[in-house]
């Protein structure tokens, strides 16, 4: 395999993994606070169409990304009102958000169906981008670097800051955290909104930077894969990032097959189904050890809480 093919596969893997990384890192923060938001798929879809429409009309990819972030946060607000203020069932509320979001995106995106945007420029990091092969990692579109910054910020916040400690404490025992005076609902709101904003960003990355086009099936399960990634990573940020790129690699399997020079007759549908099958395999591999899951998952995950009620 020549170096240029390796570089192009690396670049494609990075680009395919970034939306998963963004959405899964956001969901990780949400889940660390004890809130299970299954609405990622719908949130990404709404973020994707909001970002696309904004970029389409403004001509600016930055505006597109910001619109995706805002739309994602708005979707999360809807979920938070149901699941946190009204303490409704989190599984059902998240599903409702996904069904609603996918429908809303399809509806709002009707007039943009199959429209495309000009490909956004890449940002070369001087020096690093000239490395052999690995240089491809430093010649990417800016949201890729933003996802690395988000990763660093999340790690620093969760494990090096007082507020992050409070958030994790709430995820373990909201009642105890409430008893020592933490505003449980407010912090859970913040964590949920952050997760939604990240999912919205992930969606707008897909539609504005990665593809860059809008079609109804654009997100097609990436939100659900991001949810699985959080389990796969047993709620640890570094593993989320690694897992996202692994899945990014699986998603561009077609490119691998072409790059390898094999002359194999594989139906394209089979290759497209690979990431979903891989998700199942990975989930099984991780979940077969329930002790590890119990050790790392936030103890109150998915349980509604009414402090003081």
């Amino acid at each position, binding site marked *: 395999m020549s170096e240029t093919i390796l570089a192009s596969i690396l670049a494609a893997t990075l680009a395919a993994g970034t939306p998963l990384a963004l959405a899964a890192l956001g969901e990780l923060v949400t889940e660390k606070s004890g809130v299970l938001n299954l609405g990622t798929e719908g949130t990404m879809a709404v973020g994707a169409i909001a970002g696309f429409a904004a970029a389409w009309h403004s001509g600016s990819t930055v505006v597109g990304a910001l619109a995706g972030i805002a739309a994602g946060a708005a979707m999360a607000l809807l979920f938070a009102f149901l699941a946190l203020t009204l303490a409704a069932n989190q*599984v059902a509320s998240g599903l*409702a958000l996904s069904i609603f*979001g*996918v429908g*809303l995106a399809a*509806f709002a995106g009707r007039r943009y169906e199959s429209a495309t945007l000009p490909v956004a420029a890449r940002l070369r990091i001087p020096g690093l981008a000239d490395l052999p092969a690995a240089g491809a990692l430093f010649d990417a579109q800016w949201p890729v670097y933003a996802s690395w910054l988000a990763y660093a910020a999340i790690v620093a916040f969760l494990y090096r800051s007082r507020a992050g400690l409070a958030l994790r404490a709430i995820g373990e025992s909201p009642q105890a955290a409430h008893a020592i005076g933490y505003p449980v609902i407010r912090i859970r709101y913040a964590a949920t909104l952050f997760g939604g904003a990240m999912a919205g960003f992930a969606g707008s990355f897909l539609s504005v930077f990665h593809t860059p086009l809008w079609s109804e099936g654009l997100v097609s*399960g990436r939100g659900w894969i991001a949810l699985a990634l959080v389990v796969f990573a047993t709620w640890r940020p570094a593993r989320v990032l690694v897992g996202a790129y692994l899945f990014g690699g699986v998603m561009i399997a077609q490119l691998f097959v072409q790059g390898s020079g094999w002359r194999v007759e594989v139906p394209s549908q089979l290759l497209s189904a690979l990431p979903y099958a891989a998700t199942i395999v990975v989930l099984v591999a991780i*979940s077969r050890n329930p002790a590890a899951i119990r050790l790392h998952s936030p103890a109150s995950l998915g349980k509604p809480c009414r402090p*003081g*009620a």
Partner: protein
Amino acid sequence: MALSFEARAEPSTAMRWASPLVAAALTAIGGLLVFAALGRDPFDGFRAFFVNPVRDLYGLAELLLKATPLMLIAVGLAPGFRANVWNIGAEGQFIAGAVAASGVALHADAAWGVATPVAMALAGAAGGAAWAAIPAWLRTRFHASEILVSLMLVYIAQFGVSWLVHGPWKDPEGFNFPQTRMFADAALLPILAPGTRLNAAFALALAALVAAYVLMQRSFIGFQMRVAGESAAAARYAGFAEPRRFWFALLVGGAAAGVAGMAEVAGPMGQLTEHVSNNYGFAAIIVAFVGRLQPIGILLASLLMALLYLGGEQAQQVLGLPSSIAKVFQGMLLFFLLGADVFVGYRLRWTRGVAAAPAAR
């Protein structure tokens, strides 16, 4: 003065049944607002969406036809949802059932006669159940989340059916469209009302509602599911096996969704295409919740949801709005339901002063 939630001493039965009606009313109001926001006359929109589809007998038959798969899938999902078994992949099980039934139809012999649709229905049930057995096995054996596994299988089923109709099962005389050949008449379900498309699957769905009632209220496994839903600890203490519950819920849900898939290919479609599922598997989740996981409720909720489907088609033809607006309303319905359900367990109360801060803060 502040509004606060106060726990009811007992869950309100009246609210439990009023809440779907409140949700439906709020969705209708939301619909009016959406139409107004889109610059359409809200009442024209409302009429196109909720009245026009059922103006005549044919429209009513179409309503029952659309309600059939929703009813079948939802009634299969309800026992699982009651026991906190989250089979979210009915869409995939529907496709698996449709594929299995199509396999039978494409290889059926004219001499089979009435045995063909029967064999197709059995194949549909088996296909759906087999697809649901995967999350059941992975959940009971490896603790893998049935939510995520069943969902992933939806996408895999979609790619599978796409491969079939683009490849081995493609109609050689179909002008290269991704679809199978039309099934022989013998492979189609008999029509119930002449002049309409309403077929025998509707009767089957009604029978399934009765069977579900008997199962949940009169059988031991139904009792176990209900206990587990109320309190997992009580079910454990009573020694009810958890794996059994998962297997039962997923197999029943999968088989019902598979039969619904069979009814679609052997009914209104008459062939297998890529878009066989039409989102029924996800809409049925909403139907199950809005129907309170009870047979009668599911019957009514499936009619409401079918109306939203037909309304979506009307909105496209009459108002020039994308039919996906129906999905927006479906999501709204579930949101409003979940919100209204809070009042089953809680009531709002005005409280004076700071002594009683709002509970949810």
